[in-house]
């Protein structure tokens, strides 16, 4: 392992950052929406079960659905008011998902029992984890994996390194950046809890070089609080924030194909998750709000907004001056991995880091032509795959070949499709191929 390589990974791309639109904009608090939609599934794992009924009145922070297993988390009412419906509602990730709809009473009354407890660090580990689960924490870096699961690694997989993911390599998004600037202490204290839970010896905060102010703030505060954390500045390259690439950059270890970070003794959490862990453990505060970057050429105003989970996109967009007439595409998340929305009715969920509105011109993709084997996609793939071949295999229904060429290792980062001069939508093909492979595997077992 060369020394120079230690701070990054191989492959990757440099899309225009578009961070300047919002990176200097302080987080604004969004007014309460008149209605929120809380989907029972906002995380990877088993969906939660509703525990309220239509007509019930609920308080902010009150669970509206409960977890149905270990890999599952509850969701909470994010405002006080009346449950007006429990039905299929649009969801950012796709068609209807069972959701609890709450009409606001405008008072924002909270459940009792939330509040800072001085000696939270003395709590039992078990209690900490159950508080984290009860608070409904699912990773806020986008993948929304239940946090308490990640933080209770099996005994045969000791964790020695914890990495705080402050990379935010997706273009446009600045919510993590702002959080690091405006509430660094919460993040670090959350990180302290996580470290305590994992028993890891090394704690690293990874931040891309382009957020030098955040690096500075973090370094200063770490020193001030005398915490044993390293702050590492990373090369600006997409997808630096992807878990495996981040671990590689920080520790030099490669998560094995098909494996998990814990296989190499690492756990990665997003800065937002760390802050939420602090709230959950120290104040028993459930996860009912998050920071969303609203940005893009199609917006009238761009902002970083602290908003309640369940807030319909339309409300949030209106708060930012509404979309422009020539808006063409609304994306939940960043432009590289985010999901295009067919309507503005879906709500903000725990994993919503941004809303990006592109104008019509940006939204159009030139027609696809044929692959000329330029190998750009291969050069940039951070997973060492051959996207060109995967795409061709999927197109020609050679699913077995696709599997042998490790299609399942694709992290869907989009780098390949970004660089393809033939405008082939490789990620779409690969996603479809992965589904076919999964089907095949299922059939086989």
């Amino acid at each position, binding site marked *: 392992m060369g020394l120079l390589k230690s701070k990054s990974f191989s492959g990757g791309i440099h899309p225009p950052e578009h961070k300047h639109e919002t990176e200097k904009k302080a987080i604004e608090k969004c007014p309460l929406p008149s209605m929120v939609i809380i989907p029972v599934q906002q995380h990877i794992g088993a969906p939660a079960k509703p525990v309220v009924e239509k007509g019930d009145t609920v308080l902010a922070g009150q669970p509206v659905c409960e977890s149905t297993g270990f890999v599952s988390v509850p969701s909470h009412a994010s405002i006080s008011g009346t449950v007006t419906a429990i039905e299929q509602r649009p969801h950012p990730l796709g068609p209807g998902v069972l959701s609890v709809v709450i009409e606001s009473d405008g008072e924002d009354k909270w459940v009792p029992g939330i509040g800072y407890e001085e000696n939270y660090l003395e709590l039992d580990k078990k209690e900490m984890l159950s508080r984290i689960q009860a608070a409904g924490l699912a990773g806020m870096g986008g993948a929304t994996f239940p946090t308490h699961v990640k933080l209770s690694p099996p005994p045969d997989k000791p964790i020695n390194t914890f990495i705080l993911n402050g990379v935010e390599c997706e273009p446009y998004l600045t919510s993590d950046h702002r959080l690091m600037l405006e509430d660094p202490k919460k993040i670090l204290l959350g990180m302290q809890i996580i470290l305590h839970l994992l028993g890891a010896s090394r704690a690293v905060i990874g931040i891309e070089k382009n957020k030098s102010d955040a690096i500075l703030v973090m370094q200063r505060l770490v020193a001030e609080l005398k915490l044993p954390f390293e702050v590492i500045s990373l090369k600006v390259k997409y997808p630096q924030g992807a878990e495996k690439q981040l671990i590689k950059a920080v520790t030099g270890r490669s998560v094995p194909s098909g494996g998990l970070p814990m296989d190499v003794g690492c756990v990665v959490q997003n800065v937002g998750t760390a802050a939420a862990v602090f709230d959950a453990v120290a104040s028993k505060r459930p996860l009912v709000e998050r920071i969303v970057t609203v940005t893009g050429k199609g917006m009238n105003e761009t902002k970083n907004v602290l908003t309640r989970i369940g807030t319909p996109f339309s409300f949030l967009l209106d708060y930012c001056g509404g979309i422009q007439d020539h808006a063409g595409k609304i994306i939940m998340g960043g432009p590289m991995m985010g999901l*295009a929305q067919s309507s503005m009715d879906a709500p903000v969920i725990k994993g919503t880091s941004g809303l990006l509105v592109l104008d019509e011109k940006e939204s159009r993709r030139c027609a696809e032509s*044929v692959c000329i084997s330029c190998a750009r996609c*291969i050069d940039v793939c951070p997973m060492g*795959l051959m996207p060109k071949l995967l795409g061709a295999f999927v197109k020609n229904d050679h699913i077995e070949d696709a599997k042998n060429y490790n299609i399942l290792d694709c992290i869907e980062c989009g780098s390949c499709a970004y660089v393809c001069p033939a405008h082939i939508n490789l990620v*779409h093909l690969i996603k479809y191929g992965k589904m076919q492979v999964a089907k095949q595997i299922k059939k086989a077992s």
Partner: protein
Amino acid sequence: MEKNFFVSSSPHIYDQESIPKIMYSVSLALLPAAVGAVYFFGLRALYIIIIGIVSAIATEGILCKLMKKPLTINDGSALLTGLLLAYNVSVQVPLWMPAVGSFFAIAVGKFVFGGLGFNPMNPALLGRAFLLASWPTHMRNFTGVPHSGKISGIDIITSPTPLEVLKTAKDILQNQSQYSIEKVNVYKQAILELSDSIGNLFWGNVGGCLGETSVFLLLIGAAFLMYKRYIGWKIPFSYIGTVALLSWVFGGKDGLFSGFVLFHIFSGGLILGAFFMATDMVTSPVTFRGRIFFGIGCGIITVLIRQIGGYPEGVSYSILLMNLLTPMLDRWTKPRVFGGANKK
């Protein structure tokens, strides 16, 4: 009013490249050499280039129409193939030859495989090899006089190209007893002059195919393409490096390690081939190591054919032969998947 938003799979942003942009840039990069060709060989060079291009584009267009396929003549690849084909013939070929060559390149070299992106071998070089095998007399007629009047770049011999002079000289000097004294002396002199003619080789004032003579003009284009990252360093450098090494070792008339490296690099179609033809994306490997091996393979075959082949020209055949190996190279050099040994 409901607005319909675009919905598509991620990613939602792209860089600004496109296939036509790449193809036209490569054509642009070849433009200086075209100007050079006209300067050195006269207007006939221009006719040949135009005929090559027009025939390539017309073939593609007509075949698209006949096969009821979307018209692809605007993607610039047919233009490039026609241009490169024209660069690969001597200025003295009859004017129908570039037309036939382009036709073969596009129709047989590319179209029967499904068109752009699917052809396993370099179409322009196939066109050239087809012409060479069909009408070798015309193809090897290098008596077209370049601007300065020195075909081989040296005074005393009016024989074809510098490489050919070298080849004949080697033959003659190795079997001196069979030839007359004057003959041997002329070629001894020729060898000496060849070493001094590097300047001519560099600027392109020698006999040869239209587009291959001027190292200088070709390098301008190559530099532009490298800057734009349309061609990488791996194939050209490993190719030229291998030729340099091997011709230093084996290329000399005084035994091992006496080859005159610069001469071998600057003569023949090496620069054109290494930068513009071996790098054709469709027909070269896609992996890092694959490209290095590809270049090395081209280099070895080039020197082999130059040294002991039937003619003093190895570049086109070496690239074609390595094209055949491309799928295997890609297979053998599959990139290492992140965090895993390759399955299978």
